[in-house]
């Protein structure tokens, strides 16, 4: 088992999920609250990163992140280091790539809150912020869990984008998915199988426990 790569994968997945949580909540909330017209196209835009093959998306991100491009240049100016072939770079790439998986479930969850529940919160004096924390968040919780788990595991398994943007630097951007792929390509099938199995079992247990523990609070009044 390549523990370094696993560690990086876990960190990457954790970062991507952590960053997508607020993004998903904001975007999902906004999409759920916005009246129909035009909204469909924002939803479409959110889904677009999925359309391109990962390596190709990765290539465009590589170009976008390079110092010759305003985005990459700005990042370097602000942080002093480049985005390409860095951990930050693959985190951002993962965030972009997982956008639809984080936004969609959260948006649907927001849409399923009956409007009068929100109104009752306002009339009970809860600010929009407190309404969000005390009322909406607990009610959309299953959707948030879905979003986070999909993001997390999709990041664990993602290969093309991360290889392209990250360059498989040992200890920095070489994730467990790349490690498994490399072992496989080197025809070290038993090592690949061991790593795959470990990852599968660990993920299965972890996701299973998360889903079981985040048992649903009552979402409906009789």
């Amino acid at each position, binding site marked *: 088992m390549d523990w370094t790569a696993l560690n990086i994968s876990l960190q990457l997945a954790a970062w991507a999920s952590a960053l997508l949580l607020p993004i998903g909540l904001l975007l999902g909330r906004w999409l759920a609250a916005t009246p129909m017209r035009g909204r469909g196209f924002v939803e479409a835009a959110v889904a677009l990163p999925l359309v391109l093959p990962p390596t190709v998306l990765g290539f465009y991100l590589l170009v976008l992140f390079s110092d010759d491009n305003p985005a990459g240049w700005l990042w370097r100016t602000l942080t002093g280091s480049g985005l390409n072939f860095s951990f930050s770079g693959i985190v951002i790439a993962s965030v972009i790539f997982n956008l639809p998986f984080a936004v969609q479930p959260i948006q649907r969850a927001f849409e399923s809150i009956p409007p009068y529940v929100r109104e009752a919160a*306002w*009339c009970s004096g809860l*600010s929009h912020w407190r309404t969000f924390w*005390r009322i909406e968040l607990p009610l959309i919780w299953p959707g948030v869990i879905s979003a986070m788990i999909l993001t997390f595991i999709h990041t664990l398994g993602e290969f093309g984008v991360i290889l392209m943007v990250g360059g498989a630097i040992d200890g920095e951007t070489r994730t467990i998915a790349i490690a498994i792929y490399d072992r496989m390509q080197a025809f070290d099938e038993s090592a690949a199988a061991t790593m795959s199995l470990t990852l599968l079992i660990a993920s299965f247990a972890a996701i299973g426990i998360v889903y079981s523990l985040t048992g649903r609070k*009552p979402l409906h*009044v*009789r």
Partner: protein
Amino acid sequence: MSADWLFLQLHQNAPIPLSLQISVRAGELLALVGPSGSGKTTVLRSIAGLYRPQYGTIHCRDDVWLDTRAAIDHPPQQRRAGLVFQNYALFPHLTVRDNLTVAMDQGTAAAQRTEALRLLETVHLKGLEDRYPHELSGGQQQRVAVARALARQPRVLLLDEPFSAVDQMTRKRLQNELARLRRRIEVPIILVTHDLNEASALADRICVLHNGRALQTDHADSLFRRPRSPQVARLLGHNNVFNGRLLTVNGQPRLRWGDQQLELATSPPLPTGSDVDWFIPDSDILLHRRGRPSLGERENPVTGRVTECVPLGAQTEITMRCQGGAQPLRLQISTHAARRNDIRIGADIRVSLLAEGIHVMNPVDYRADQSLNFSA
């Protein structure tokens, strides 16, 4: 500044017609009554800031909550209006206690819990504080909603049929609690109710709404005895609304009704010969009992035959066809009296229409309204 605590004026043609002006003083309880779909809930939602009428102003004390012309529209949070939703709208994921504490913005957590328990006791729900809303019956949920509206220490209390799902005993107790509460919290209260007894027992004034229009706002007694229009009278469940013509006989005002000439206690401010609508409340129709002459029997005696006789518990409803071609009268008498006087279908009876109770309506007050298109 208006001396009223809460003042509102709403106008809109579509999609929900609204046209009313209401003011409620602090500590005053205004009952809003009217048929299903007349806009009662919409009025409360407008006050709470959940519905935005096309034109309108809402003031509460010195604050302007809504002024569509000045583009002022405070959000619900700033309005501090406690609203009991018609469908309760409890927070499904919170226990009964937390449904209350979440609405409190003062005091420590412990103080809030104590206050929540106190409020739950007020609505007779002690012992259910750890339940979730889906573990409550309809009436229990409704009472949680009432307690939650109070938990906020509102500056205006808006109750949308708050007792419709509770039994009469609990309802009576809750009505008493509400009466007590009024004295304590001193804020304007608007109560939507379908129960006219409840309205007259609890309210200082009653506003009758129909198709979004406030037809009449008055003290219970005035409203029940002197409805402004036949429509109001009928909306209040009065059956005895008739047409007649004003006469003057020997300098005294009289009302021609069928063949009869009825005495009037006061002279209506209308020219002799006017065709008018008039009305008499149940309490001023006096049944003449066999062998027991009563004080009012001289006044406007009317003879007729019973065509219907429906006992409704302690009261019995009687319809009589009057002699002289007048429209049929309906009256309620105690079932006991009906039994003692052997009143049944086909029996001939005699009643007095007490002059004091006869209310002649002024067409000027309502004919204008009738040009409007009222639908069911």
